[in-house]
């Protein structure tokens, strides 16, 4: 199963992902229509990008009284069937991350569906902060990142390794 991963050390809060997602939903560039959102906090100079995690035991799925939320077998995405959604907003209330929002035009809840397995947000993320990765291979990119950090600390003399030189 592939997941969208977010590296907060790379995100430059350019909003390309939000525009790309909004476009996929409504063919317009209104950030409010996006299922992914980029929050930038100038006080701490931090960018935080958030989208649905497609939880294994998704609370939204459990709580939905209309049975409109299901797991897509092929992509693993937790998806809302907009024809079935009653617009009761229960899922919005229960999602711990605020990753579901209400579509005021269609009067239904709206969330990420992984674009059917080819996420637009990732394709338009120009920093590489967003990746679409196999869960099983995730450790690999994490290791590479950690290696980079360790290497830098060693080079800067902040940590010393015994043995070798």
């Amino acid at each position, binding site marked *: 199963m592939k997941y969208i991963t977010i*590296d907060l050390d790379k995100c430059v809060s350019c909003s390309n992902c939000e525009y790309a997602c909004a476009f996929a939903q409504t063919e317009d560039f209104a950030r409010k229509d996006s299922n992914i959102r980029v929050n*930038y906090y100038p006080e701490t100079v931090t960018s935080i990008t958030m989208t649905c995690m497609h939880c294994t035991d998704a609370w939204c799925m459990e709580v939905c009284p209309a049975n409109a939320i299901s797991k897509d077998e092929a992509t693993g995405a937790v998806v809302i069937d907009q024809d079935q959604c009653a617009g009761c907003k229960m899922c919005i209330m229960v999602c711990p991350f605020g990753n579901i929002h209400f579509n005021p035009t269609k009067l239904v809840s709206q969330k990420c569906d992984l674009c059917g397995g080819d996420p637009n947000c990732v394709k*338009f993320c120009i920093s590489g902060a967003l990746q679409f990765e196999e869960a099983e291979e995730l450790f690999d990119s994490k290791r590479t990142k950690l290696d980079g950090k360790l*290497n830098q600390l060693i080079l800067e003399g902040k940590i010393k390794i015994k043995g070798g030189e």
Partner: protein
Amino acid sequence: MGNERKQIKSLCRMCDDHCGINVYVDEQGQVVNIDGSNHYWNRGRLCVKGRAGVDFVNHPDRILKPLKKIDGKFVEIELEQALDEIAKKMSEITEKHGARANSIWKGEAVGFAQEEELARRFIHAIGSPNYFSNDSQCFVGRWIGYSLVAGSWMAQPDFENSRCIVLWGANPPSAHPNMTQYIMNAKEKGAKIIAIDSRLSNIARQADIFAQIRPGTDGALALGIIKILIEEKIYNQHFVEHYTTGFDKLKDYVQKFSKEFVCQETGISEDILNDIVKAIHFGKSQVVNYVGNGLEHHENGINNIRAVACIDALIASFDQKGGNFMPEGFGPSELTLYHEKPLTELEPIGADKFPVLYEYRKECHTMTAMDTIITEKPYALKSMIIIGANPVLTNPNTNKVIEALSKLELLVVRELFMTETAELADYILPAASYLERSELHYHGMHQVATLTNRIQTIEGVQDEYMFLHDLAHRLGAGEYFPWENEDRLNEWLVEPSGVTIETLKAHPEGYQYKPLQYKKWEAKEARGEKPFNTRTGKVELFSQYLEDMGYDGLPVYHSPDFIANPDSEYPYTMITGARKMIYYHSRNKNFKRFLTAVPRAELELHPYDAKNLGIADGDLVRVTSQIGSVEVHAVIKHEREIMPGIIQFTHGWKEANVNLITHDDKFDPIDGFPLMKAVKVKIEKI
């Protein structure tokens, strides 16, 4: 989707980065979607304006028929008639005033570098040296600054293998989106990222060090860094001794750039200055100093850029892996006529005032062109063909630009959409978009060549080649345009390179024409060649050439005017030209969805200034310089994001055109770039 879609690969030209794209075309031949191809450059990713190329090519407002202005109104005419009439008028002008009274101007809207060379070829072919472009106020300042020192400019350095990336007045996420990937990959591998900017830009948000600097003072910082590098012996002595000239002169000169002076002048703290030096030291030769447009548009721009290049010289980062890599060219046939028909005796406009600009770039000076048209001095300039440019919004001093262009006897504008410049034209010709032509393009960072694909053709819409071909043939210069169409031209272009069109077609995601080689200066020296492409063959910390021309031989620092001569009437300093990712200078403002994202021009200011001026977020304010006023909506930034006393005004909006208040007569004496990033202004709430 029911409808069969075909995928064709090409390059995006919604900005100058030329990312690889997959263009999806439906059964009717309509372009329906665009996403990123796995081209060397962008690796599958695009910025959203690349996707919106669909809007660009299919837009209902596209100009698809030639228009002629009759009694102040545009009327559709046939292409042949338009070409005949334009040629006739140009011939009359030539007869009366000489061929040099005709000129051409290349913009950024339609094509690739090939389009520029074709424009240059055409104007020389018909006997005039007057080629203009947006380059007399963008890009070329960096090119010349670096070329004076090291013989070339590295527009695409080796970010990814770098250990220290210093971004001087550059914000790649907005200006060169896919460069961000490279910079962040380097960061992931442990490189230090340093952003030097007056604004806390997107890239500064991910920088290890953010040096918030007063506009135009980068030279003082660079010279201060050099002083420390020399004092602390953090420089490559071998390289300096063998490959540079002028070290002792530079060493003497930088003595004045004490930490105290540098910090006071630039607004940067001593800690940050020390951290920058430490990061450069950590990088050794794997340092990229990348200069953005933020250092151009200043009266001391070239010397500030030269000072930065001198840092590269001291640490020997030129042409290093992870440093300022100097790519080798593809080696195509020469399309321009500067050897065959240089025409310098005809006094290219601006070449006398800015000889360095002309000698290094063969670029006439657009600001001088406006004066020439109005005053007819030193000679008459009567016709201009403008291709995909909108100087009414993008050149400084808009009112003068309008006056000048209106005074021309013949103004031809080739465009995709109606623009403020096109409105002044006598003829508007429909221009082909980047999906309606086939051109060669090179990405230096990877030494790859790509041939773009003609994805659609529109009846009656010519590409640049066919237009210039048809006009040249009508003007008796057909011998210079012997190729039947652009495909034949492309075959001729690749001939000397040894790479065939078939090979390029087989590699639509880029063909690497030469493997990358680093430190070519060593190999060149061993072969007895000049290691660097400068006059002396060495990296020139001091330039005898400049000194002989009456300029400073050293990269001398002069304080910007707002510091040297503060003016209580105009107490604020205005920067303009910081791009919004979604727009490309003045372009794309006619796309509805782009306006949803960024609906209007903005004046960014510090909360302290806003409070003093009684301005609330979103208020309409009036900004006034010595030459005029404009009204614009204020955006109050967080106190970390912009410096007090400094404002930033987005360019390219007709509704709030900042160039109504920028100067065309204050410039860098070496390259003639106008002062647009440290303009003295006052601000009032309306």
